[in-house]
């Protein structure tokens, strides 16, 4: 059942919420262009993949587009292209999102198709086989992308067996084992109205969206039956994983710590401290020291990744292989300084002003507001949380920033991955990163 009432109109966002047992909806009317974006999100993602079935949530999402009880894949593809519409799947650790867009004149047939895909998928055997082959090939192809390989290796190294360490698209051996029966069972667990969120914007009336969402909710009543994710354990000491790939003239360095929740009391002070260290700023310490002064790396930045539980804080450099040991060593020295001394009053003033002044760009377009609503609803954040960044950052003090930095940015617990050619780098990395040789692992880049 669906029960809706208007909660607020925020920057033009019409928020329709629901009672405890119903689908949630957020829709913003935007008639400036004849186009509509509609997302249906399930509030769990790859963290719900059972052991030995990594990648199955992503697989189930993709299979929605490959056949229903009344349409085969070819008919679905033709129908979408005929409408000038797109539907794609995005799998996150804690969300599975069916993303749709369409010209506003086609919204009626588009919503009918979307309902069919989500409520009546048939998981044809032939398409299961074909999708498995495609994903396996994509995973093999991904091995040519150093940045992607390194990022996956870092998450796995930091989180170990915790669900946050799993790759959302799985690994080759698990994907090859997926069957129609397993996919159907997983679909049945995930797609329930209590875990569905409908979020969109565009040139269509609210009543039409409400009516459609109501039908969607009625077709999939119930709650999701997947285990809750527990907080990950932080590694106790500094460690290094070298992802060994031949002939690299450039490396990928990913280093970081288990992070904090966005609702943590230290979140906004740490957000500001991170901005000063390596945030999206050409005045940040990492950019200035690694790129501007020394020319070691084209990119040098840091960021937090968030989940319902603490995920990670990470910095990323991609220096020339010849500069890699020095760049890693210098970045750790900089982190030690941040940990011990915090940031200066000038840095605090500059970064606070910059973040507060630019906060409006987090929600200045309908597309961004959709993404914010998706994040808030799938991570159980308060409504309007993203819009609160400016006011919350205004209240943060220098003392709070530096106290949080002392508590959080502990370089002794850093997990580091370096994708490069191990034989050229191993000894120099150990020396420059100040790591015991027994805390160093070397893994072939094509091991998984």
């Amino acid at each position, binding site marked *: 059942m669906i029960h809706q009432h208007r909660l607020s109109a925020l920057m033009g966002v019409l928020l329709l919420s629901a009672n405890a047992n119903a689908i949630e909806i957020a829709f913003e009317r935007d008639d400036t262009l004849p186009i509509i974006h509609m997302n249906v999100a399930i509030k769990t993602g790859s963290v719900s993949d059972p052991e030995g079935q990594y990648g199955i949530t992503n697989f189930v999402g993709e299979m929605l587009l490959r056949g229903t009880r009344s349409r085969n894949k070819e008919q679905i593809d033709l129908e979408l292209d005929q409408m000038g519409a797109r539907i794609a799947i995005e799998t996150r650790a804690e969300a599975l999102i069916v993303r749709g867009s369409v010209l506003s004149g086609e919204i009626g047939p588009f919503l009918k198709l979307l309902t069919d895909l989500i409520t009546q998928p048939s998981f044809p055997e032939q398409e299961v086989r074909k999708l498995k082959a495609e994903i396996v*090939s994509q995973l093999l192809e991904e091995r040519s992308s150093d940045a992607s390989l390194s990022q996956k290796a870092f998450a796995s190294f930091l989180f170990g067996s915790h669900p946050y360490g799993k790759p959302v698209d799985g690994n080759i051996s698990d994907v090859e084992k997926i069957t129609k029966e397993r996919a159907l069972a997983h679909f049945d667990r995930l797609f329930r109205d209590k875990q569905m969120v409908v979020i969109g914007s565009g040139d269509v009336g609210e009543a039409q969206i409400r009516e459609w969402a109501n039908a969607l909710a009625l077709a999939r009543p119930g709650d999701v039956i997947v285990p809750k994710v527990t907080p990950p354990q932080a590694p106790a000491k500094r460690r290094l994983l070298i992802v060994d790939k031949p002939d690299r003239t450039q490396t990928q360095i990913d280093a970081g710590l288990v992070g904090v929740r966005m609702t943590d009391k230290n979140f906004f002070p740490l957000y500001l401290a991170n901005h000063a260290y390596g945030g999206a700023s050409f005045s940040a310490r990492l950019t200035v020291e690694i790129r501007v002064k020394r020319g070691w790396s*084209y990119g040098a930045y840091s960021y937090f990744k968030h989940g319902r539980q603490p995920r990670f804080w990470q910095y990323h450099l991609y220096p020339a292989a010849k500069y890699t040991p020095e760049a890693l060593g210098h970045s750790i020295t900089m982190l030690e300084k941040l940990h011990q001394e915090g940031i200066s009053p000038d840095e605090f003033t*500059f970064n606070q002003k910059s973040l507060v002044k*630019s906060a409006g760009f987090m929600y200045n377009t309908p597309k961004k507001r959709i993404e914010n609503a998706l994040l808030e609803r799938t991570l159980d954040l308060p409504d309007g949380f993203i819009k609160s960044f400016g006011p919350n950052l205004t209240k943060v003090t220098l003392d709070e920033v530096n106290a949080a930095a002392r508590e959080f940015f502990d370089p002794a617990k850093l997990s580091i991955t370096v994708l490069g050619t191990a034989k050229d780098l191993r000894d120099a990395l150990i020396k420059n990163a100040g790591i015991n040789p027994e805390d160093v692992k070397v893994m072939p880049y094509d091991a998984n």
Partner: protein
Amino acid sequence: MRIPSLLPVLALLIFGCSSFPKSSELPVGKFERIPLIGKFTAERTRLENGLTLVIVQDHSSPTFAYQTWFKVGSRNETPGYTGLAHLFEHMMFKGTKNMKDGEFDRILESAGAEGNNAFTSRDYTAYVQELPIDAFDLISRVEADRMVNLIIDDQAFKTEREVVQNERRFRMENSADGLMYQEIFGLAFTQHPYKWPVIGYPEDLERMSAVEARAFYTTHYAPNLATVVVVGDVEPNQVLATVKKNYGPLPPSAEAPPVSPITSEPPQKSPKHKTLKLNIQVEKLMMGYRIPEATHPDAAAVSVVRSLLAGGKSSRLHRALVDTGISSGVDCYDIDDRDPSLFIIASNLQKGHKAAQAESVILRELSRLTAQVVSAQELERSRNIMNFAFYDDMGSSMEKANFIGRYSTIAGSFEKGLEIFGLSQKVTGEDVKRVAALYLRPANRSVIIGAPKGTIPAPVAQSAGGGP
């Protein structure tokens, strides 16, 4: 480009063939009003020093996008100095006579700037930002300042050259796709500057000094060589007054940039193939067909061909390659450059399949396109896909500004982009058949195969159409 993609935007839109006013013909200090898209209208004018200004009002948030486009890219470089346009773009963030090194970024970040960046293509260089509305005078002032007052310091140039070498390692040397993209242009072009990569060759970058950068700045950066685009919560007369105040005193370049010694590319008479042995585990294929410039009368039909081949999952190549289990993905790009460029088809093979097999399938599909007139229903699907993409790519202020700046720079006016979009909706089946036969013929192709190291690539595919 400082962080995001160096590769040029592979736009879905292309140009038409009618003539539009040159910047020197625009009214000075008076606005022309031109419908843009949906409820948006553009207003265009020119300062006395030749600066073109285009404004679009969008009052949905108290912000605006500000973009400055220059008509210079890697096409203006000379052999031995490839990559100079892009390396110079990096130098534009250094100090000026009025600002210390690093101050430009710091001032803008302090004002709340978002996406303060730049990018370089074969034909243009653009500097882009978004800002809160109270920073309009600020951005206009600092952009005007660096247009003429840049200081190109020797040491800063050397450090930035190393940053660009690292960018090159990132985008090319250690990227299979990047290397193949570089090589397809290198193979398809023998004379024209499009043959070299925008980021340049490493030995050329190493050879350059601040001396060349200073000469490049003097030649290519001046108000009469630029278009400023403003989209957002602004009022046109106020924008014009502020822009006049900050840019008005800048002198135009004393003389027009020298006509680049650009050699037209001779026609291709036979297919070309090259195999790269890479650190990859599935084969990759990239095919490039020589197509006319973005403003050519056939450009609209070429864009429809692109959509028919790979515009959606019901498209011909998706059906023939992905649905059959040969490839895991396929894409097409009709690159809208100022001079004749490439129509690129790229595909990643599935495990156990060879790039030559995919090439054969593509040749067969292209042959089919030239032999039979496409059905009305398929053509309508293709038009709908393009129609959707047109609106979807113009949603934000930055996207609208990008459209205006790009087409103003490479085609003389953004109306050409609008007109060609309109023309693409009228392309017929016969048009498709004709341009496919003219440009996508087997002899007109250059092919790069990416093969895993240690493997033997399959023999070159033969054309299904029986010869060139």
